[in-house]
Protein backbone atom coordinates (compact mmCIF):
# COMPACT_ATOMS: atom_id res chain seq x y z
CA UNK A 1 0.00 0.00 0.00
CA UNK A 2 1.22 3.47 -0.86
CA UNK A 3 0.93 6.44 1.43
CA UNK A 4 -2.23 8.48 1.27
CA UNK A 5 -3.22 10.82 -0.13
CA UNK A 6 -1.63 9.22 -3.13
CA UNK A 7 -0.74 12.27 -5.16
CA UNK A 8 0.08 14.89 -2.53
CA UNK A 9 -3.39 16.41 -2.69
CA UNK A 10 -3.64 19.92 -1.31
CA UNK A 11 -7.29 20.76 -0.77
CA UNK A 12 -9.76 19.42 1.77
CA UNK A 13 -13.14 17.96 0.84
CA UNK A 14 -14.89 21.00 2.33
CA UNK A 15 -12.79 23.35 0.18
CA UNK A 16 -13.52 21.27 -2.91
CA UNK A 17 -17.21 21.09 -2.05
CA UNK A 18 -17.40 24.86 -1.52
CA UNK A 19 -15.88 25.40 -4.97
CA UNK A 20 -18.46 23.08 -6.57
CA UNK A 21 -21.38 24.60 -4.67
CA UNK A 22 -20.36 28.07 -5.85
CA UNK A 23 -20.99 26.90 -9.41
CA UNK A 24 -24.42 25.41 -8.61
CA UNK A 25 -27.69 27.24 -8.10
CA UNK A 26 -30.95 25.31 -7.87
CA UNK A 27 -29.91 21.90 -9.18
CA UNK A 28 -31.00 18.96 -7.00
CA UNK A 29 -27.96 17.68 -5.08
CA UNK A 30 -28.02 14.29 -3.36
CA UNK A 31 -25.26 14.19 -0.74
CA UNK A 32 -23.94 10.86 0.57
CA UNK A 33 -24.04 9.95 4.26
CA UNK A 34 -21.42 10.82 6.85
CA UNK A 35 -19.37 14.00 6.95
CA UNK A 36 -19.99 15.03 3.32
CA UNK A 37 -23.65 15.77 4.20
CA UNK A 38 -22.69 17.64 7.35
CA UNK A 39 -20.10 19.70 5.48
CA UNK A 40 -22.52 20.54 2.66
CA UNK A 41 -25.10 21.67 5.23
CA UNK A 42 -22.49 23.94 6.82
CA UNK A 43 -21.11 25.40 3.56
CA UNK A 44 -24.43 26.17 1.85
CA UNK A 45 -27.71 24.75 3.12
CA UNK A 46 -30.16 24.85 0.22
CA UNK A 47 -33.63 23.26 0.04
CA UNK A 48 -32.50 21.55 -3.17
CA UNK A 49 -30.00 19.53 -1.12
CA UNK A 50 -30.95 16.06 0.05
CA UNK A 51 -28.70 15.04 2.94
CA UNK A 52 -28.35 11.32 3.56
CA UNK A 53 -27.71 10.04 7.06
CA UNK A 54 -27.83 6.34 6.27
CA UNK A 55 -28.06 3.90 3.34
CA UNK A 56 -24.38 4.18 2.49
CA UNK A 57 -23.61 3.52 -1.16
CA UNK A 58 -27.03 4.64 -2.39
CA UNK A 59 -26.49 8.33 -3.21
CA UNK A 60 -26.05 7.84 -6.98
CA UNK A 61 -29.02 5.43 -7.05
CA UNK A 62 -31.25 8.08 -5.47
CA UNK A 63 -29.85 10.73 -7.83
CA UNK A 64 -30.49 8.41 -10.77
CA UNK A 65 -34.13 8.04 -9.71
CA UNK A 66 -34.47 11.83 -9.59
CA UNK A 67 -32.66 12.24 -12.92
CA UNK A 68 -34.89 9.70 -14.70
CA UNK A 69 -38.05 11.27 -13.27
CA UNK A 70 -36.92 14.83 -14.08
CA UNK A 71 -35.08 14.56 -17.40
CA UNK A 72 -35.05 18.33 -17.88
CA UNK A 73 -33.22 19.04 -14.61
CA UNK A 74 -29.48 18.57 -14.16
CA UNK A 75 -29.07 16.32 -11.12
CA UNK A 76 -25.87 16.24 -9.08
CA UNK A 77 -24.70 13.75 -6.49
CA UNK A 78 -21.87 14.29 -3.99
CA UNK A 79 -20.27 10.98 -3.21
CA UNK A 80 -17.19 9.55 -1.51
CA UNK A 81 -14.72 6.83 -2.41
CA UNK A 82 -15.97 4.41 0.25
CA UNK A 83 -19.53 5.05 -0.90
CA UNK A 84 -18.73 4.46 -4.58
CA UNK A 85 -16.92 1.23 -3.73
CA UNK A 86 -19.91 0.02 -1.71
CA UNK A 87 -22.43 0.71 -4.46
CA UNK A 88 -20.16 0.14 -7.43
CA UNK A 89 -22.87 -1.66 -9.38
CA UNK A 90 -24.65 1.67 -9.75
CA UNK A 91 -21.79 2.94 -11.94
CA UNK A 92 -22.84 0.19 -14.36
CA UNK A 93 -26.53 1.07 -14.15
CA UNK A 94 -25.78 4.75 -14.80
CA UNK A 95 -23.35 3.85 -17.60
CA UNK A 96 -25.96 1.63 -19.26
CA UNK A 97 -28.94 3.99 -18.91
CA UNK A 98 -26.85 7.05 -19.85
CA UNK A 99 -28.99 9.81 -18.31
CA UNK A 100 -27.73 13.04 -19.90
CA UNK A 101 -28.66 15.07 -16.83
CA UNK A 102 -26.57 13.12 -14.30
CA UNK A 103 -23.39 14.53 -12.73
CA UNK A 104 -21.48 12.43 -10.22
CA UNK A 105 -18.96 14.30 -8.06
CA UNK A 106 -16.70 12.01 -6.03
CA UNK A 107 -14.58 13.46 -3.22
CA UNK A 108 -11.87 10.83 -2.95
CA UNK A 109 -9.81 10.97 0.26
CA UNK A 110 -8.90 7.27 0.22
CA UNK A 111 -10.34 6.72 3.72
CA UNK A 112 -13.56 6.01 5.60
CA UNK A 113 -13.31 9.41 7.28
CA UNK A 114 -16.47 9.36 9.35
CA UNK A 115 -15.45 6.16 11.17
CA UNK A 116 -11.84 7.08 11.90
CA UNK A 117 -9.85 7.18 8.66
CA UNK A 118 -9.56 3.48 7.97
CA UNK A 119 -8.13 3.15 4.42
CA UNK A 120 -10.39 2.34 1.47
CA UNK A 121 -8.84 0.81 -1.66
CA UNK A 122 -9.31 3.83 -3.92
CA UNK A 123 -5.56 4.53 -3.75
CA UNK A 124 -5.12 1.56 -6.10
CA UNK A 125 -8.54 1.50 -7.82
CA UNK A 126 -9.09 4.58 -10.05
CA UNK A 127 -12.84 5.02 -9.68
CA UNK A 128 -13.20 7.42 -12.61
CA UNK A 129 -11.73 4.75 -14.89
CA UNK A 130 -14.29 2.26 -13.60
CA UNK A 131 -17.02 4.80 -14.42
CA UNK A 132 -15.57 5.35 -17.90
CA UNK A 133 -15.43 1.62 -18.57
CA UNK A 134 -19.03 1.32 -17.35
CA UNK A 135 -20.20 3.85 -19.94
CA UNK A 136 -20.11 7.34 -18.41
CA UNK A 137 -19.84 9.88 -21.23
CA UNK A 138 -17.24 12.08 -19.50
CA UNK A 139 -14.93 11.40 -16.58
CA UNK A 140 -12.30 13.75 -15.18
CA UNK A 141 -9.85 13.39 -12.32
CA UNK A 142 -8.62 16.60 -10.71
CA UNK A 143 -6.10 17.34 -7.96
CA UNK A 144 -6.47 21.06 -7.26
CA UNK A 145 -9.03 23.81 -7.01
CA UNK A 146 -8.20 25.52 -10.27
CA UNK A 147 -8.65 22.35 -12.34
CA UNK A 148 -11.76 21.48 -10.38
CA UNK A 149 -13.48 24.77 -11.22
CA UNK A 150 -12.43 24.63 -14.88
CA UNK A 151 -13.53 21.03 -15.39
CA UNK A 152 -16.79 21.26 -13.43
CA UNK A 153 -17.87 24.35 -15.41
CA UNK A 154 -17.16 22.34 -18.54
CA UNK A 155 -19.15 19.30 -17.34
CA UNK A 156 -22.14 21.51 -16.52
CA UNK A 157 -22.28 22.45 -20.22
CA UNK A 158 -22.05 18.88 -21.55
CA UNK A 159 -24.44 15.95 -21.82
CA UNK A 160 -23.72 13.32 -19.17
CA UNK A 161 -23.55 11.03 -17.45
CA UNK A 162 -20.37 12.60 -16.10
CA UNK A 163 -18.04 11.97 -13.20
CA UNK A 164 -15.74 14.51 -11.63
CA UNK A 165 -13.37 12.79 -9.23
CA UNK A 166 -11.62 15.20 -6.90
CA UNK A 167 -8.67 13.95 -4.91
CA UNK A 168 -8.91 15.55 -1.47
CA UNK A 169 -7.01 15.22 1.78
CA UNK A 170 -8.31 13.63 4.96
CA UNK A 171 -9.13 16.89 6.73
CA UNK A 172 -12.61 16.89 8.20
CA UNK A 173 -14.44 20.14 8.84
CA UNK A 174 -16.03 20.73 12.26
CA UNK A 175 -19.65 20.29 11.24
CA UNK A 176 -22.73 19.44 13.25
CA UNK A 177 -25.19 16.66 12.57
CA UNK A 178 -27.97 17.18 10.05
CA UNK A 179 -30.39 19.59 11.71
CA UNK A 180 -33.72 18.75 10.09
CA UNK A 181 -35.56 15.53 10.87
CA UNK A 182 -35.41 13.08 7.98
CA UNK A 183 -39.14 13.35 7.05
CA UNK A 184 -38.79 17.15 6.96
CA UNK A 185 -35.75 16.83 4.68
CA UNK A 186 -37.82 14.67 2.33
CA UNK A 187 -40.64 17.24 2.26
CA UNK A 188 -38.31 20.20 1.83
CA UNK A 189 -36.43 18.53 -1.03
CA UNK A 190 -39.64 17.42 -2.80
CA UNK A 191 -41.08 20.94 -2.63
CA UNK A 192 -37.82 22.50 -3.84
CA UNK A 193 -37.48 20.30 -6.93
CA UNK A 194 -41.19 20.05 -7.83
Amino acid at each position, binding site marked *: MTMRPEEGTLISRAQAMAAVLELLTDQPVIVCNGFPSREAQKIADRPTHFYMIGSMGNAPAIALGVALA*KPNKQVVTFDGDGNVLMGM*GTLATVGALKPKNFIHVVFDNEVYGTTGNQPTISNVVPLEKVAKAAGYAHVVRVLDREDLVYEFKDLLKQDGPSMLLVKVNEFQEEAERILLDPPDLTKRFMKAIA
Partner: protein
Amino acid sequence: MIDSDVFVQSLQNLGVNFFTGVPDSILGGIIAELMNRRLYTPAVREDEAVGMAAGAYMAGKMPAVLMQNSGLGTSLNTLISLNMIYRQPCILIVSWRGQGGKDAPEHLVMGEVMPQFLDTMKIPHRTLTEKTAGDDFKWIAEIYQKQQIPVALIITKGVVKGLHP
Protein backbone atom coordinates in the same frame (compact mmCIF):
# COMPACT_ATOMS: atom_id res chain seq x y z
CA MET B 1 -54.29 -17.35 -12.29
CA ILE B 2 -53.92 -13.58 -12.85
CA ASP B 3 -52.65 -12.46 -16.26
CA SER B 4 -49.46 -10.37 -16.21
CA ASP B 5 -51.09 -7.57 -18.17
CA VAL B 6 -54.00 -7.44 -15.71
CA PHE B 7 -51.50 -7.34 -12.83
CA VAL B 8 -49.51 -4.48 -14.40
CA GLN B 9 -52.68 -2.59 -15.32
CA SER B 10 -53.93 -2.90 -11.73
CA LEU B 11 -50.72 -1.26 -10.47
CA GLN B 12 -50.96 1.47 -13.11
CA ASN B 13 -54.57 2.06 -12.07
CA LEU B 14 -53.31 2.74 -8.54
CA GLY B 15 -51.08 5.43 -10.00
CA VAL B 16 -47.80 3.49 -10.03
CA ASN B 17 -45.64 5.03 -12.76
CA PHE B 18 -42.04 4.09 -11.95
CA PHE B 19 -40.99 0.43 -12.02
CA THR B 20 -37.56 -0.94 -11.24
CA GLY B 21 -36.16 -4.09 -9.69
CA VAL B 22 -34.14 -7.26 -10.12
CA PRO B 23 -35.77 -10.27 -11.83
CA ASP B 24 -37.07 -13.54 -10.44
CA SER B 25 -38.62 -16.42 -12.38
CA ILE B 26 -41.96 -16.01 -10.54
CA LEU B 27 -41.98 -12.35 -11.68
CA GLY B 28 -40.89 -13.15 -15.26
CA GLY B 29 -44.29 -12.55 -16.84
CA ILE B 30 -44.78 -9.26 -15.00
CA ILE B 31 -41.36 -7.94 -15.99
CA ALA B 32 -41.91 -8.96 -19.63
CA GLU B 33 -45.20 -7.06 -19.60
CA LEU B 34 -43.54 -4.00 -18.02
CA MET B 35 -40.83 -4.11 -20.69
CA ASN B 36 -43.48 -4.36 -23.43
CA ARG B 37 -45.04 -1.24 -22.01
CA ARG B 38 -41.59 0.43 -21.75
CA LEU B 39 -42.13 1.04 -18.07
CA TYR B 40 -39.27 -0.94 -16.55
CA THR B 41 -35.86 0.39 -15.48
CA PRO B 42 -33.60 -2.54 -14.59
CA ALA B 43 -31.35 -2.32 -11.52
CA VAL B 44 -28.34 -4.49 -10.68
CA ARG B 45 -29.02 -4.91 -6.95
CA GLU B 46 -32.18 -4.61 -4.93
CA ASP B 47 -30.80 -1.88 -2.65
CA GLU B 48 -29.99 0.15 -5.74
CA ALA B 49 -33.53 -0.40 -7.02
CA VAL B 50 -34.96 0.79 -3.69
CA GLY B 51 -32.68 3.85 -3.83
CA MET B 52 -33.76 4.69 -7.39
CA ALA B 53 -37.38 4.30 -6.36
CA ALA B 54 -36.81 6.72 -3.45
CA GLY B 55 -35.32 9.29 -5.83
CA ALA B 56 -38.20 8.85 -8.26
CA TYR B 57 -40.69 9.24 -5.39
CA MET B 58 -39.11 12.53 -4.33
CA ALA B 59 -39.28 13.67 -7.94
CA GLY B 60 -43.04 13.10 -8.00
CA LYS B 61 -43.41 9.47 -9.14
CA MET B 62 -45.20 6.57 -7.46
CA PRO B 63 -42.63 3.77 -7.49
CA ALA B 64 -42.73 -0.02 -7.34
CA VAL B 65 -39.71 -2.30 -6.86
CA LEU B 66 -39.78 -5.92 -8.00
CA MET B 67 -37.56 -8.49 -6.34
CA GLN B 68 -37.20 -12.05 -5.16
CA ASN B 69 -37.39 -12.37 -1.37
CA SER B 70 -33.61 -12.83 -1.15
CA GLY B 71 -33.49 -9.18 -2.25
CA LEU B 72 -35.17 -8.16 1.00
CA GLY B 73 -31.91 -9.13 2.67
CA THR B 74 -29.85 -7.18 0.15
CA SER B 75 -32.00 -4.07 0.41
CA LEU B 76 -32.72 -4.17 4.13
CA ASN B 77 -30.42 -1.32 5.16
CA THR B 78 -31.81 0.98 2.47
CA LEU B 79 -35.38 0.14 3.43
CA ILE B 80 -34.81 0.94 7.09
CA SER B 81 -32.20 3.75 6.99
CA LEU B 82 -33.67 5.55 3.98
CA ASN B 83 -37.34 4.76 3.34
CA MET B 84 -38.52 4.16 6.89
CA ILE B 85 -36.79 7.09 8.60
CA TYR B 86 -37.25 9.59 5.75
CA ARG B 87 -40.88 8.52 5.15
CA GLN B 88 -40.40 7.61 1.52
CA PRO B 89 -43.01 5.07 0.44
CA CYS B 90 -42.64 2.44 -2.26
CA ILE B 91 -44.52 -0.66 -3.29
CA LEU B 92 -42.45 -3.83 -3.04
CA ILE B 93 -43.52 -6.65 -5.34
CA VAL B 94 -41.77 -9.62 -3.73
CA SER B 95 -41.81 -13.20 -5.00
CA TRP B 96 -42.00 -15.84 -2.27
CA ARG B 97 -39.25 -18.28 -3.11
CA GLY B 98 -38.83 -21.19 -0.70
CA GLN B 99 -42.47 -21.15 0.39
CA GLY B 100 -43.41 -24.37 2.19
CA GLY B 101 -39.86 -25.69 1.96
CA LYS B 102 -40.24 -26.69 -1.68
CA ASP B 103 -37.46 -24.90 -3.54
CA ALA B 104 -33.69 -24.87 -4.06
CA PRO B 105 -31.69 -24.92 -0.80
CA GLU B 106 -30.60 -21.27 -1.02
CA HIS B 107 -34.26 -20.17 -0.76
CA LEU B 108 -35.34 -22.29 2.20
CA VAL B 109 -34.29 -20.13 5.14
CA MET B 110 -35.71 -16.87 3.79
CA GLY B 111 -38.71 -18.78 2.44
CA GLU B 112 -39.54 -19.94 5.95
CA VAL B 113 -38.93 -16.71 7.87
CA MET B 114 -40.05 -14.06 5.36
CA PRO B 115 -43.40 -13.12 7.00
CA GLN B 116 -41.79 -12.78 10.45
CA PHE B 117 -38.85 -10.95 8.87
CA LEU B 118 -41.18 -8.35 7.34
CA ASP B 119 -43.11 -8.09 10.63
CA THR B 120 -39.87 -7.48 12.53
CA MET B 121 -38.89 -4.75 10.07
CA LYS B 122 -42.41 -3.27 10.48
CA ILE B 123 -42.98 -3.49 6.72
CA PRO B 124 -46.71 -4.10 6.13
CA HIS B 125 -47.30 -7.02 3.77
CA ARG B 126 -50.05 -9.02 2.17
CA THR B 127 -49.96 -12.12 0.00
CA LEU B 128 -51.77 -11.74 -3.32
CA THR B 129 -54.47 -14.28 -4.22
CA GLU B 130 -56.67 -14.33 -7.30
CA LYS B 131 -59.81 -14.22 -5.17
CA THR B 132 -58.77 -11.21 -3.07
CA ALA B 133 -56.77 -9.34 -5.75
CA GLY B 134 -59.08 -6.31 -5.85
CA ASP B 135 -58.85 -5.82 -2.08
CA ASP B 136 -55.12 -6.57 -2.06
CA PHE B 137 -54.35 -3.76 -4.52
CA LYS B 138 -56.66 -1.36 -2.68
CA TRP B 139 -54.96 -2.20 0.62
CA ILE B 140 -51.49 -1.62 -0.85
CA ALA B 141 -52.48 1.84 -2.10
CA GLU B 142 -54.02 2.76 1.26
CA ILE B 143 -50.92 1.79 3.26
CA TYR B 144 -48.69 3.62 0.76
CA GLN B 145 -50.70 6.84 1.09
CA LYS B 146 -51.36 6.72 4.83
CA GLN B 147 -48.12 5.37 6.27
CA GLN B 148 -45.60 6.69 3.71
CA ILE B 149 -43.32 3.66 4.12
CA PRO B 150 -42.53 0.59 2.00
CA VAL B 151 -45.40 -1.88 1.70
CA ALA B 152 -44.97 -5.39 0.28
CA LEU B 153 -47.23 -7.40 -1.99
CA ILE B 154 -46.07 -11.02 -1.85
CA ILE B 155 -46.38 -13.09 -5.02
CA THR B 156 -46.47 -16.87 -4.64
CA LYS B 157 -45.69 -19.26 -7.45
CA GLY B 158 -48.55 -19.71 -9.92
CA VAL B 159 -50.70 -16.75 -8.81
CA VAL B 160 -49.58 -14.47 -11.64
CA LYS B 161 -48.98 -16.03 -15.04
CA GLY B 162 -45.25 -16.47 -15.65
CA LEU B 163 -43.24 -16.74 -18.84
CA HIS B 164 -43.48 -20.54 -18.86
CA PRO B 165 -46.88 -21.56 -17.53
